[in-house]
């Protein structure tokens, strides 16, 4: 029988959900108006005040928020409560190197962990389970989110963080992990190692929750077969809370959005007009319960489709499909947001030209990032040692900016094709 973590919300009728959302939206708009000058100014510019927001239909009167707003208000300009009321931050890399810092009150942490608990419950996890959290812990939301969710449902939580594969496998076998939470590429890698070591018979996994990067249906099939588990997708972003904004159920054909906390909309990224259910467009979220860092109509830049068809799991929460692409140039590499503009900034700082190419690929189930850049007269030297030093310093600067390793390939001047119109900066060879 299907289990729910918070049935009253997950299976609410359309009328009940509308009532919950309306009440929370009205309250949230007022909270933001009263406490966030940046947002109040944006509302005033659009000629809208809290009294104009009475129903869900009024949502479209509100201005949008984008990564640019987050950048302009870095680090705490969008904070809607006193810092003393906050208990934690998480952070993600943003455009042109400025990070996004998201603040949480205890209430915000709780609701986020509830969302992750719903995801774990939908994947079949209970207090009988051993939940191995192999997402990164720290500023990244992956580890903390699933860790908290696992606590909420009373699973025995293994706070492994990412990497150290031998230790992962040792705990997995010694403690009999039944649920695995990590990126899909790491799950595939773990599966490979398990098969290489011939220890599959010692693995007790039954389910996995894999998110933070794009993965295909065929990748799901191979992970499921290799590990003998059911593999569930999970969606989230730091700006809105973290993983658990939406999660998959036993149907495995789209993710239920926790819409009692986050109202989703689909808009046309060009005209910014809301689009009807079932239409492809840019996903926008309004967080209606968060206290510290409530974003209204935040443009995720993810392209997807929402649908409200009846789900056999019994949940009535609206479903979103896997994001089908981005309406900006952001790349997700190894679960990390990478913007070409960040790479460009580093190249110019290091004395290279802005003519470059980024090549993303997936080798052995792990993303690779390569930056091709042209050698310049200024950086050239007759000493190979000096050039390799410069190359090393460029690699280090990219690592500092992006948080992940990028291979640098120096090429001859004029060897990167110049284009007439929009330059082809990114070549994504990943077959997802």
């Amino acid at each position: 029988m299907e289990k729910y973590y918070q049935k009253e919300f997950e299976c609410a009728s359309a009328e009940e959900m509308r009532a919950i959302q309306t009440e929370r939206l009205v309250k949230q708009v007022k909270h933001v108006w009263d406490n966030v000058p940046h947002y109040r100014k944006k509302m005033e510019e659009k000629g809208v005040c809290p009294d104009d927001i009475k129903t869900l239909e009024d949502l479209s009167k509100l201005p949008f928020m984008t990564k640019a707003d987050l950048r302009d208000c870095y680090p705490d300009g969008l904070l809607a409560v006193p810092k003393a009321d906050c208990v934690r931050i998480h952070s993600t890399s943003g455009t042109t190197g400025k990070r996004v810092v998201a603040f949480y009150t205890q209430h915000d942490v709780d609701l986020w962990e509830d969302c992750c608990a719903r995801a774990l419950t939908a994947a079949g996890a209970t207090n009988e389970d051993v939940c191995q959290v192999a997402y990164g812990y720290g500023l990244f939301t992956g580890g903390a989110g699933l860790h908290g969710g696992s606590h909420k449902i009373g699973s025995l939580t293994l706070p492994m963080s990412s990497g150290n594969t031998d230790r992962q496998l040792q705990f997995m076998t010694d403690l009999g992990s039944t649920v695995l939470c990590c990126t899909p590429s790491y799950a595939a890698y773990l599966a490979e190692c398990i098969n290489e070591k011939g220890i599959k018979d010692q693995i007790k996994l039954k389910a996995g929750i894999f998110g933070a990067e794009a993965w295909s249906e065929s990748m799901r099939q191979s992970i499921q077969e290799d590990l003998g588990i059911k593999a569930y997708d999970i969606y989230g972003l730091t700006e809105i809370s973290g993983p658990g904004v939406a999660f998959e159920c036993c149907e495995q054909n789209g993710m239920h959005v926790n819409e009692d906390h986050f109202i989703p909309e689909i808009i046309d990224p060009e005209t910014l007009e809301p689009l009807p259910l079932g239409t492809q467009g840019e996903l926008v979220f309004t967080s209606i319960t968060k206290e510290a860092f409530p974003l209204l109509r935040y443009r995720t830049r993810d392209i997807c489709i929402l649908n409200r068809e009846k789900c056999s799991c019994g949940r009535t929460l609206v479903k979103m499909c896997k994001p089908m692409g981005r309406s900006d140039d952001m790349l997700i590499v190894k679960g990390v947001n990478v913007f070409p503009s960040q790479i460009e900034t580093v190249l110019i700082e290091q004395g290279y030209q802005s003519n470059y190419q980024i090549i993303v690929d997936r080798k052995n189930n792990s993303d690779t990032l390569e930056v091709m850049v042209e050698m310049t007269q200024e950086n050239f030297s007759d000493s190979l040692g000096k050039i390799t030093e410069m190359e090393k310093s460029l690699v280090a600067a990219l690592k500092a900016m992006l948080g992940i390793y990028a291979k640098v390939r120096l090429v001859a001047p004029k060897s990167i094709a110049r284009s007439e119109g929009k330059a082809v900066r990114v070549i994504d060879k990943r077959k997802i």
Partner: protein
Amino acid sequence: MKVIKQISLFLENRSGQLLEITKLLSASGIDLKAVHIAETADYGIIRLITDDYEKACEILKENGYIISLNDVFAVGVSDKSGGLSELLTVMADYEINIVYMYSVFGQKHGTAYMVLRVDNAEMFAKMIEENNFITADSAELGIK
């Protein structure tokens, strides 16, 4: 202290890259006196000594190559077993490090020349003088 002009070029590790350069230079009648390659997996530095470095630089720049023109030393060593060791022994005594080195044959019978870039040129000049090493000038290597 006699010095030789050396041209360095940045080249990608792809077939035909060096050929393009030799074709380009030979088309203008430039004679290569020495060619040396230092490489990594992705790219290399080609070091050239030519009979007319000014003209060679001009042609290479015109064709979009990134080049660097440097003074290097060409030190004569006797063309027999142990010839190079003599030079290296003295350099070690003076604590001079080699940035890179390659050999080029001179026109005088029995002498080979080591083309060197060192980390301490001043000390190197002192060493050459104090130990009576022969250094080649341009004419000796057939450079205009």
